[in-house]
Each structure stands twice: as structure tokens, then as C-alpha cells.
């Protein structure tokens, strides 16, 4: 029996990267090889960001969001991270036979509200229905394009030595909200998903500084995975200060109870900016009141993320392999 796809091939960690790479080689070109969340295209002198993403989430509705909102904001955010203003998106639905029409309506209302909020238009779409058990209720794919805002320094995937790392708020809320709802863990914690559009904040950052090298939204795999990717792609090290990383007390406690490391838990409304030291505080202001400077790009620890813990000891953050599982006692 040959090797098979496991759930770990889709979790944002090591196995997924290997799979992505295996596929990327087949289509290798300059744009794809950049490996960023959105492709940067040049069409008749206009610079365009183009991105696509599929959304599967269980349950479909969770505190703070739902699959419709995720599908719009996910693609909007991928485009925004390229330094672009998102304009148009497509909407493709794969629906399992038996889904309630009223449920579909609720999801579509959410799509409408989210696209209004992010100021994008749904301009094309598709529907497929599959037999019962061939899909889980509904899967959504969205693709989108946006116009890249002109900046001096191109926003790409490579950070530069001396860049400071700024985050726009508290981590790990989406992942913990979804797991609480899905597994009916019954934490009466008030933890809500942070699911939101980042285009407004991202544009504010770009206007505040022309010295941003990388912007990255933190989705599955969490902060640690995103930083591991950037360190590796930039061929530089990242030093991260644990005490500066914003996290809500109740989220941290829930992570502690389950034995999860919040640095690896998913977010849907958080991003990091890698920016020249000089402009870090300006960018931080643009990222809102919960923003924080959490680290720095260094030439030591090449391709690694080095975490300075609260007691000033250090450890390396690894790219994850398997999803985190709750501990036993």
C-alpha cells in the first residue's frame, strides 16, 4: 500500500509543506515559486494580486463567525497581505445533498454582510451538489483579485535583517472558539473567533510606512508556523519575545487545560508586519490598540525562530507535524 493523504497533510505543518512543494514543482514558475498567499501579476501595466482558498469548517457556525464570513475574509486577507486593495471575489459552493435551504440562506446572508464590510463584490460563482456523505454539509471556495497599492519597497515573502515584527492583536482565539464549539467542551469562556477582514488595517500600515518587507496573516498553524515559514524563506533568524505576545487570559487558560500551545493555534483576524525599525511604531499605531512589537529579524539562528521565554530562557519553535491533541491529565 502506497503512502496516503492524512489529515496532517492539511494542517499547515511540515507534511503539508512537503505536499505543497511536491505539487509546486510540477507547475514551477516565477510567480508560483514566490510561495506567498496571493500571486502578484502584472496585467497591462497594472499590478494585481490574485488568490484562492477553500473553506471547510465544523461546525458551520461558531462563536464570532461562520463559514460564510471565513470564506470572504480569508481570501480578502490573503490579497491584502500582498499590499493590495481587494476588489472582486468569486464564490463556489460544493453542497451535500440534504442541506437545509434556510441554512444555506443564513450562510449566504453572512457572505453578503462580510463582502460589504470588506468592500468587495461577489462577481461570479458556481454551485455543485454531491451525494450525501460525499461532502460534509457545505464546502466553499473563493478566489479574489485586488489592485496592488504602489509602495517603494515591494511587499513580498522575504524579511530583512533588523526588521521588527508587529502583530495586530491577541492570538489563538479562532482555534479555541472553534474547538470549544465543535467538541462541545462546554467552556463557558466567552471565547469568540477573531474572524475579520484585515484590508483596512493592512492599507493603514502601507500608508504609514514604505519600509514593510512582509505582511502575513496568521491562519492555521498559528503564529509559530507563519514565522517558521518566513524565517526559512528569508534565510534569516527570528527572535521572538514571549512576554510581548498578546493573548487573552481565558484563551491561555483554555490552552493550558487542554495542553495546547497557543503559538500554534489558528487565528482568522491576525497578521504580522515585518518593518524597518524606524517605522515600527508608526505601523504599530496603524494596526490598532492591541498591536504589539513581538520580535526581531536577526542574522543568528538562521532559518529558525528563537523564542525568549518569560523567564528569559530560550527555545527554538519548530514547524509542527501533527495537529495538537488534548492531553489526558
Amino acid at each position, binding site marked *: 500500500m502506497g503512502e496516503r493523504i492524512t489529515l496532517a497533510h492539511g494542517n499547515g505543518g511540515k507534511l503539508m509543506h512537503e505536499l505543497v512543494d511536491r505539487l509546486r514543482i510540477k507547475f514551477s514558475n516565477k510567480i508560483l515559486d514566490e510561495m506567498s498567499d496571493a500571486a502578484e501579476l502584472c496585467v497591462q501595466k497594472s499590478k494585481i494580486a490574485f488568490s484562492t482558498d477553500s473553506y471547510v469548517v465544523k461546525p458551520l457556525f461558531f462563536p464570532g463567525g461562520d463559514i460564510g464570513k471565513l470564506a470572504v475574509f480569508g481570501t480578502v486577507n490573503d490579497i491584502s497581505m500582498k499590499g493590495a486593495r481587494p476588489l472582486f471575489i468569486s464564490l463556489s459552493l460544493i453542497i451535500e445533498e440534504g442541506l437545509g435551504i434556510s441554512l444555506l440562506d443564513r450562510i449566504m446572508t453572512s457572505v453578503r454582510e462580510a463582502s460589504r464590510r470588506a468592500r468587495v463584490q461577489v462577481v461570479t460563482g458556481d454551485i455543485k451538489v454531491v451525494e450525501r456523505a460525499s461532502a460534509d454539509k457545505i464546502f466553499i471556495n473563493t478566489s479574489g483579485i485586488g489592485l496592488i497599492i504602489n509602495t517603494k519597497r515591494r511587499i513580498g515573502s522575504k524579511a530583512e535583517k533588523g526588521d521588527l515584527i508587529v502583530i495586530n492583536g491577541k492570538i489563538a482565539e479562532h482555534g479555541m472558539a472553534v474547538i470549544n464549539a465543535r467538541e462541545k467542551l462546554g467552556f463557558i469562556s466567552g471565547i469568540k473567533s477573531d474572524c475579520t477582514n484585515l484590508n483596512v488595517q493592512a492599507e493603514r500600515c502601507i500608508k504609514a510606512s514604505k519600509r514593510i518587507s512582509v505582511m502575513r496573516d496568521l491562519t492555521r498553524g498559528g503564529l509559530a508556523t507563519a514565522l517558521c515559514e518566513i524565517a526559512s524563506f528569508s534565510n534569516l533568524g527570528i527572535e521572538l519575545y514571549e512576554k510581548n505576545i498578546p493573548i487573552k487570559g481565558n484563551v491561555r487558560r483554555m490552552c493550558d487545560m487542554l*495542553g495546547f500551545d497557543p503559538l500554534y493555534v489558528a487565528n482568522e483576524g491576525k497578521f504580522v508586519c515585518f518593518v524597518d525599525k524606524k517605522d515600527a511604531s508608526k505601523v504599530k499605531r496603524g494596526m490598532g490598540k492591541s498591536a504589539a512589537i513581538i520580535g526581531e529579524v536577526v542574522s543568528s539562528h538562521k532559518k529558525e525562530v528563537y523564542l525568549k*521565554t518569560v523567564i528569559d530562557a530560550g*527555545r527554538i519553535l*519548530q514547524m509542527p*507535524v*501533527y495537529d495538537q491533541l488534548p*492531553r489526558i491529565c
Partner: protein
Amino acid sequence: MKKIRLMEVCGTHTMAIAKAGIKKLLPSGIELVSGPGCPVCVTAQGDIDRAIEISRFDNVIMTTFGDMMRVPGTKESLDDMRGKGHDVRLVYSCRDALNIARYNTGKKVVFMGVGFETTSPTVAATVIEAEKKGIRNFFVLSDFKLIFPALEIMAKSEKPAIDGFICPGHVSVITGSMPYEKIAAKYGKPCVIAGFETADILKSIIRLTDLIKRREYSVVTEYKRAVKRSGNRKAQKILNSVFEKSDTTWRGLGMIGKSGLRLKNEYRRFDAGGEFRVKIPRTKRRIACICGDILKGAKSPVECKLFGKACTPRKPVGPCMVSSEGTCAACYKYEK
């Protein structure tokens, strides 16, 4: 000056110590070694094989905690069985398994239970609930362990000789601090019951070294906000009404008398071991894996030839690399 060797018994402490980087800050005179307190790691290979054999039955839904899924038995893991189409499900608690039984009356639902005194009372409560509700298709495969018999072996051990114990906070919430008193006095090993915050652990290390220096062989509870001397009496009562002590095999430590739990006669009908008669292939020890020595604190992960090479979180050979509380996993993830 003589080196002081402290053992953190509990897997959650092992993880917390690695995560905060505590070992790197300790003076060279203090050594921390990990003990046999990770429930996944100490589960004998034969017990995993037995669960795997039971999961092969057509009408069985096998359930267990997340980490147990990936631990390899002699040949395969429960995760492999799921991959082959057998109905193996991950649950967050034993009650989830009972609910599965309620909604799948045509199937026999087996819960493979591992863990220490922290986990077993909740399972006992679930068995009582199943009895009350007359649920007949629910079974427990009891691979539970009691920490004190293992702790006593560690206290007696010459290699490595432990000077003091950082004792598990969660277990002690249930058992109380009393059971440690005998061990501390009899073997001359001070015990400090610690919480799981970095500050809790650091405080406990300071306290423990202080006790060792003064040759005070007593039990101190640093985790006062949760642990009482008598523990949680109600949980103890529930546990003792459903389970009784039995001999059991630990990975790495072998057979330890009265260190496991089996269902009492009046609840024996929930015993999966009795319901499913399976033949377990004879356990062969994997030659190069030193999980056994690691569980005893006799060796550290980096002394294993397989560590980080043939044995990684992706392709774990031994359970210490699989479990999120395992010593090898902690070492690989945070200290490598």
C-alpha cells in the same frame, strides 16, 4: 559539591519545564530528570495490541484519548486501524464514549482508558452513569495506573538515585498530599507538590533543594490553591466504588503489584477484557528504543540512538515521542 538530582514525575511538568526553558537556567549542580508520569508512555505495548485486536471486531466502535491513537503497538497503531476502515474514534472524555454508545445501540462501544488518579474517577463516574441508565453496549478497557507504586520504585532506585521529587499537581488534587508522606519518610526523599505555571515549578525546585540541603524528608504542597492534604474525598469514593487495585505491567518498569485498576465484581459486565476474548501477539521489545530507561529517568532522550533520526514526532518508534507529555517529544520540540 554533590549534584542534586530531582525527578519531575508528571508528564505535564516535563512539557512545562521544556516549554519555559527552565533546564537552561538551572545552575549546573541541579539536574532534572523525567519520571514515569506520562499515561500514554507507560501503557504497555501488549495493552495497545489488545485494543487494536478489539478494534478489528465488526460491531465495535473503539474510542480513546487523542495521544493513544498514534502510539505504535507491536505492529500497528489505533490510527492505522482507523486508516484501514475500522471504527476508531478520538474522544475528549469517557462520557463522550458513553454518548456514542447511547446513539449506536447496535454497536459495542469500547473506551480504552489510560491515565492516573486524575482521569480514573471521571471514568468511574461514567460507569456508574451507564449502570443507572441501563446502557448495555458500553465497555471499558481499563489500562489505568496508580502513581504511588511507581513512585515508590523510583524512590528505591539506585540508578538513577533521586534526591527529591517534584510531584504531580493534578493527581494530588484527587489523592491529596498524604500518600507522599510515607514515601518521603521511608526513603528519605523530600516531595514538593507543584503547580504548572513556570513560577510554580521554579518555586518548587527552590523549595526542594532547600529541603534536601536541610535533610528534611517531608512533603510540601506548593500548589496550595488546588491541593488539600486529604484530597478530593468524593472523587476517591467514586473511584473506589467502581475499581479495585490489580497488578499491571508498565512500559519500562515491568509488572508492578497493585499498581493498576480493574472493575469491581458488581461492574464487571462493563469490562471490555471480559467481553472480547482476544489473543495478543507476544510483545517483542524494539531493540534500539530506550523508552523504558527514559521512563525510569535512567537515560535522557539524547542518549537514544534513534532520537531525532529514526524516531521523530512524525515517525515515532516509542511512546515517549508520540505523547504530547512524553519526555522525548518535549525534548524534540523544545530542547533540540
